[in-house]
């Protein structure tokens, strides 16, 4: 493939001279990353820095009777051995609940377990030593006397009367329950010509960020400040949590986030061992570093998607969908994760099932239960892949049942493109979506008719290929409705401070963060465009709570849509201020001037009047020459928060074309397509790469990734040898198309694009597998990951799941 220097832009109403909106400009931070000059937290070294390691519970549930640490304390290089009870004097426990998830409950969680370990891998004692190796050596010498307790593993029996209650003070193992009745589901099913039921099983999996979680905490008693270098998506959120639980004021805590080796929602939560690390730094009055190793990542990074959903769809013979119904059960480990809670994924599943379709009849129940496994929480595309697999799985099963083409069934039920604004059955408010335009575009891109003909021809030769689709909606640009209204100090607004330096260059300080999405490039594009300078003159600073406006960070596809709009507005405001100064110097009317390519020009003729360096020189060094009473303001801050809509919903559709080897059960992915509508596209290349990466993450979920636990709550595959992730050889090329429906809530009109790929890929691959197998009489596969063994069972025993 030839690399285009500048991928053709999606036309934008925002175009003005030297506009970068809609252009695939390269990211400013890539050169140093390709040179090995990144600055990841794992790379940070500070004077007097010590290293933490943890002794972790080998049991899923056990009482800690005694900890014998004498040998560990005497081991070479050891600075301190600290138990949970000792650390609890420095840092207070937390409870992961929010008030808008009605009835959600959890128990206090400590930085290090006190009295009881509730999952295999929970830290029970910390060692701080001069090196990580010495800390690990000493941790291995810690002898913990455990009384093994009965473990609650299976969500199906977690609520039975005979099952022990993990936190007796809570009364039962129910974390959260939500019930929804919209329209009249009973009537919908009664009116249906066919009702299709299925049970969907989703395997627990996790983020496997290439750089594990990493933190360096430095408590300086001299200035009574805690400086934390942390690989996090939300520095202001963790600043608040460190302060709150260490008994500090927020201004005493500075969180710095430089390069982060992958996040995907894994690094948007607070982890017990990270809280322990900041507490150890405070206790020991010196910098302490903790970097999770891969085993620790598998047993402590949040897991996600462990949902079992029984579901039904009603459909008439003309293809009209008459009702959806789901019953979701999910086990989230022993604690609801702090501070976003572990109720959100099930809540999202309830919100999103049936989302693309006009059917008003929808009944849902979701139950979230405690169990003695590692915690589950929000991971990329929270709830979307589950809701989409259930919805789209049912839609294609229904199509097969009534003998209708899957694209045609969708066409008859998707919200019409002119139906907006609209409110979905679950109460979601849609400003403007493009399901039909997207479906039409993807059918054209993939040559649907041609592909069906090829499929039929190959089938005669014993080659079994399948085509599967997934239409979806995606939650982006969240307002305060997501967390703020529930009492979490997680801000939905964001800010950008823009300044003109003394040579006419631009600095942007933004509250959103960069973990590889290209946030910094997007911010630079926004300000360079709205202010009017070449991109090379813009420098971006993110990830520093001391030096950026208070902001939410990067999650839920908010960086471009929210952070980008704040930056856009700040650039405009600074432009007005600089023009006022230039007009004052030139004794001209500021409205007759413009800034183009970094030069102040006459707006109508484009004649050059003065360079920004000259404006800056006068303002900074010869302000005495400016008219009396004129004060230039070359630092401007603007904020933005979505107000008109709780979320900027986006939509899209994906399709998968694959081949199933009926002898081995192996699936070969041949091609994958996605058409996505994220509103205004600021940088087409970055959007496309977000979608491609997300799709491959979703392919991991549907074909490979599974945290396998035994009945005793032991994670059996906590290594990258045993836990399969997508590697290059098995992945297909992916074609991306766009439909552009900007949001009117912001001037830029950009919505998010980070979840789309992961949201739709599992559903369409699952559907394609079933499309390949259906003529062979195989039972539908509605569980993932789809292992070859499941395909063989579906073919030979007509039951895909070993029981």
């Amino acid at each position, binding site marked *: 493939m030839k690399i285009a220097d500048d991928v053709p832009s999606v036309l934008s109403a925002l175009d003005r001279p030297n506009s970068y909106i809609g252009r695939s400009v390269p990211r400013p931070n890539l050169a140093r990353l*390709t040179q090995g000059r990144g600055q990841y937290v794992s790379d940070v070294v500070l004077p007097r820095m010590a290293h933490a390691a943890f002794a972790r519970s080998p049991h899923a549930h056990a009482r800690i009777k005694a900890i014998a640490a004498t040998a560990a304390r005497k081991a070479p290089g050891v600075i301190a051995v600290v138990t949970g009870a000792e650390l609890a004097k420095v840092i207070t426990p937390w409870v992961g609940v929010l008030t808008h998830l009605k009835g959600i409950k959890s128990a206090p969680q400590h930085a290090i377990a006190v009295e009881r370990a509730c999952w295999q891998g929970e830290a029970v004692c910390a060692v701080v030593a001069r090196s990580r190796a010495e800390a690990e050596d000493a941790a291995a010498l810690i002898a913990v006397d455990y009384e093994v307790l009965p473990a609650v593993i299976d969500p199906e029996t977690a609520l039975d009367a005979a099952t022990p209650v993990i936190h007796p003070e809570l009364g039962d193992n129910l974390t959260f329950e939500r019930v929804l009745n919209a329209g009249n589901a009973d009537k919908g099913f009664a009116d249906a010509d066919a009702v299709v039921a299925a049970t969907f099983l989703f395997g627990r999996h996790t983020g496997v*960020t290439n750089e594990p979680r990493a933190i360096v905490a430095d408590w300086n008693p001299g200035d009574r400040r805690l400086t934390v270098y942390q690989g996090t998506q939300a520095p202001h959120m963790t600043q608040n949590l460190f302060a709150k639980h260490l008994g500090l004021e927020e201004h005493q805590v500075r969180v710095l986030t430089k390069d982060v*080796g992958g996040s995907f929602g894994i690094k948007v939560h607070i982890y017990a061992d990270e809280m322990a690390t900041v507490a150890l730094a405070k206790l020991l009055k010196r910098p302490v570093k903790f970097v999770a190793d891969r085993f620790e990542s598998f047993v402590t990074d949040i897991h996600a998607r462990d949902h079992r959903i029984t579901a039904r769809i009603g459909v008439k013979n003309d293809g009209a969908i008459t009702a959806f119904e789901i019953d979701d059960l999910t086990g989230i480990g022993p604690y609801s994760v702090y501070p976003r809670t572990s109720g959100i994924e099930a809540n999202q599943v309830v919100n999103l099932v049936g989302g693309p379709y006009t059917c008003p009849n929808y009944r849902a129940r979701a139950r979230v239960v405690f169990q003695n496994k590692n915690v589950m929480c929000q991971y990329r595309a929270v709830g979307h892949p589950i809701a989409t697999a259930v919805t789209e799985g049912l839609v294609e099963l229904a199509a097969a049942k009534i003998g209708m083409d899957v694209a045609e069934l969708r066409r008859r039920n998707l919200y019409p493109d002119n139906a907006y604004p609209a409110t979905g059955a679950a109460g979601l408010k849609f400003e403007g979506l493009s399901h039909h335009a997207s479906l039409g575009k993807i059918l054209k891109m993939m040559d649907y008719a041609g592909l069906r003909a090829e499929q039929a021809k190959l089938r005669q030769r014993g080659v079994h290929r399948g085509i599967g689709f997934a239409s979806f909606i995606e939650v982006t640009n969240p307002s305060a409705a997501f967390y703020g209204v529930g009492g979490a100090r997680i801000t939905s607004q964001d800010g950008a401070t823009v300044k003109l330096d003394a040579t006419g260059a631009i600095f942007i300080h933004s509250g959103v963060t960069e973990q590889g999405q290209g946030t910094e490039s997007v911010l630079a594009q926004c300000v360079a465009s709205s202010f009017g300078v070449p991109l090379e003159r813009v420098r971006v600073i993110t990830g520093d709570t001391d030096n950026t406006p208070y902001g939410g960070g990067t999650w839920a596809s908010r960086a471009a849509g929210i952070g980008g709009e704040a930056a856009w507005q700040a650039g405009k405001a600074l432009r007005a201020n600089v023009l006022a100064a230039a007009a004052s110097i030139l004794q001209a009317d500021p409205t007759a001037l413009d800034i183009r390519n970094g030069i102040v020009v006459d707006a109508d003729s484009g004649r050059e009047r003065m360079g920004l360096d000259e404006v800056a020189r006068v303002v900074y060094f010869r302000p005495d020459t400016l008219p009396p009473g004129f004060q230039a303001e070359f630092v401007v801050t603007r904020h933005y928060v979505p107000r008109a809509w709780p979320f900027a919903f986006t939509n899209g559709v994906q399709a998968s074309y694959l081949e199933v080897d009926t002898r081995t059960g192996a699936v070969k992915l041949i091609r994958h397509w996605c058409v996505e509508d994220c509103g205004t596209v600021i940088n087409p290349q970055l959007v496309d790469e977000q979608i491609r990466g997300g799709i491959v993450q979703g392919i991991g979920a549907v074909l490979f990734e599974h945290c396998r636990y035994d009945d005793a709550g032991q994670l059996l595959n906590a290594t990258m040898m045993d836990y399969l*992730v997508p590697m290059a050889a098995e992945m297909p090329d*992916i074609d991306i198309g766009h439909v552009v429906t900007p949001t009117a809530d912001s001037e830029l009109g950009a919505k998010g694009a980070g979840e789309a790929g992961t949201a739709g890929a599992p559903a369409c691959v699952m559907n394609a597998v079933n499309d390949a197998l259906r003529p062979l009489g195989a039972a539908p596969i509605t569980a993932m990951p789809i292992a070859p063994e499941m395909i063989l069972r579906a073919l030979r025993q007509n039951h895909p799941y070993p029981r």
Partner: protein
Amino acid sequence: MTERFLDIGLRVNGEDVRERIEARKTLVDFLRDDLGLTGSHIGCEQGVCGACTVRLDGAVVRGCLVLAVQCDGAAVETIEGISDSGAIADLQDAFQRRNALQCGFCTPGMLIGAQHLLSRGGVPSRDAIREHIAGNYCRCTGYQAIVDAIESTATARAAARAEKAGRP
């Protein structure tokens, strides 16, 4: 051998290095902790993810599967040295223009692996590229952009070779 600490001497990125190190220390820990060469990353410590890929006497190895003491007398090249040499400037440029990296954590290892493939000459097929980098884990990109960047570099190098050989 029962000594816990050993003296080693090796060349790292063309510079002579003499250090007394723990026998159990891996090459990547030695490069990162003792020499400050943090461009080699640690992802899995089992040789699966490829983030720690370096060159040892010209061979592409996993820095987590080689002990530093095994490198006594050897020549080690890391991303820092390979980058400064200019030998992969075109490949680095292609990665940047194609956005073939997002978080960048896998990138040093990916570049060293790709350069190994490209050094064989010719223009490998996309499947061959995918096969070759199948030992380097990237969670961000989905790999297609990486394949594109390697393929375009191979094409450009082949064209340059052809031009040098006097063909049109």
